């Protein structure tokens, strides 16, 4: 709920994936394809991006062997993508977008369009760019061990609540 909808994460994503050359090429000559998208509804402003599912529907739908899990991250190998859109259709979160690449063309010279989604900045030594650039620190990387700790904390809190309630009940009976 910290997100203020500023979309700096989207810019950060593009800069991280395009590299420094975006400041050197023709202003229209690079690919502006953020791999996450800030969504604003009545109740919420938040970037939506890939959840790196354990059983990815996109991977199951891919007929061209372009989607793989590498170290727990779901990665699209765009060079293998035939642009059939099955993964985009399969993703329940809308985390995959079809994009047209300016940087690559098909053998017949036609523009090349591929599926595009978050890869957790796997090539970035400092981790996901969206996290780093967010001015309100609204994003965080959920790791498996964090998930375990969060659950443990929640359960401890639940136990605490139950103890409190029990004490009140006893006090009521005593009174």
């Amino acid at each position, binding site marked *: 709920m910290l997100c203020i909808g500023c979309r700096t994460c989207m810019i950060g994503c593009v800069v991280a994936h395009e590299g420094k050359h975006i400041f050197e090429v023709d202003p229209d000559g690079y690919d502006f394809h953020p791999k996450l998208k800030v969504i604003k509804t009545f*109740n919420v402003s938040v970037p939506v991006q890939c959840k790196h599912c354990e059983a990815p529907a996109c991977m199951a739908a891919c007929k061209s062997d372009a989607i793989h899990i590498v170290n727990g991250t779901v990665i699209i190998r765009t060079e293998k993508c*035939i*642009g*059939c859109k099955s993964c985009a259709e399969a993703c329940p*979160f*809308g985390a995959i*977008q*079809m994009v047209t690449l300016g940087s690559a063309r098909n053998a017949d010279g036609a523009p090349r369009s591929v599926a595009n989604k978050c890869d957790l900045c796997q090539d970035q030594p400092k981790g996901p760019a969206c996290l780093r650039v967010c001015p309100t620190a609204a994003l965080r990387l959920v790791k498996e061990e964090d998930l375990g700790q*969060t659950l443990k904390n*929640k359960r401890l809190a639940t136990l605490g609540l139950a103890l409190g309630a029990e004490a009140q009940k006893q006090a009521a009976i005593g009174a």
Partner: protein
Amino acid sequence: MPSEFGLFVSTDIAKCSGCKACEMACFQSHNIKRNNVGKTVGTISVPVTPKLYVTVIETASMPVQCKHCENSPCKAVCQQKAISRVGSQIIVDEAKCIGCKDCLMACPFGAIALLPFYVGGRQAPQADSSGGKVAASKCDLCYEDPEGPACVRVCPNEALRLTDVNEERKKKNIAAAEALAVINAGDPGRRALS
């Protein structure tokens, strides 16, 4: 707004009964002019050649049809230039097809079949006049029909829909965002702000 990327018809497998109404409608829509097919079965005098293929197994069924790939393998392999992109869609020009079957082999979905090609109620001659012509047949989204794909219109179970993935993405994104609001509300560290 016209779609930048190829639209395609997708199936809700839970709804598809495998009835082939889509195949019949597809055949009709493409043969009204070419083979004088009317509204009743009695007006059919040529073999039924659909552009989508209902596939049934013991537990499920669906019409397999072209996804109108952006980097289409079928188009890439066609030496005759019989497969091209019209707007955002991949279209086969049957007149140019010589039946080499490369596109059938290249398509990972099995969405293309080699079927007899009839014009005016008769099978057209093969290019070398050696016999009846066969040609690659695959979904063209009824691009010449202002009402759009016939299969979608006739499905008795509303199992088919014309899909624009980037449009659908908008809706899915909104649902995902709303879900994140609930997830954050359940997170003690962030609850103060929800």
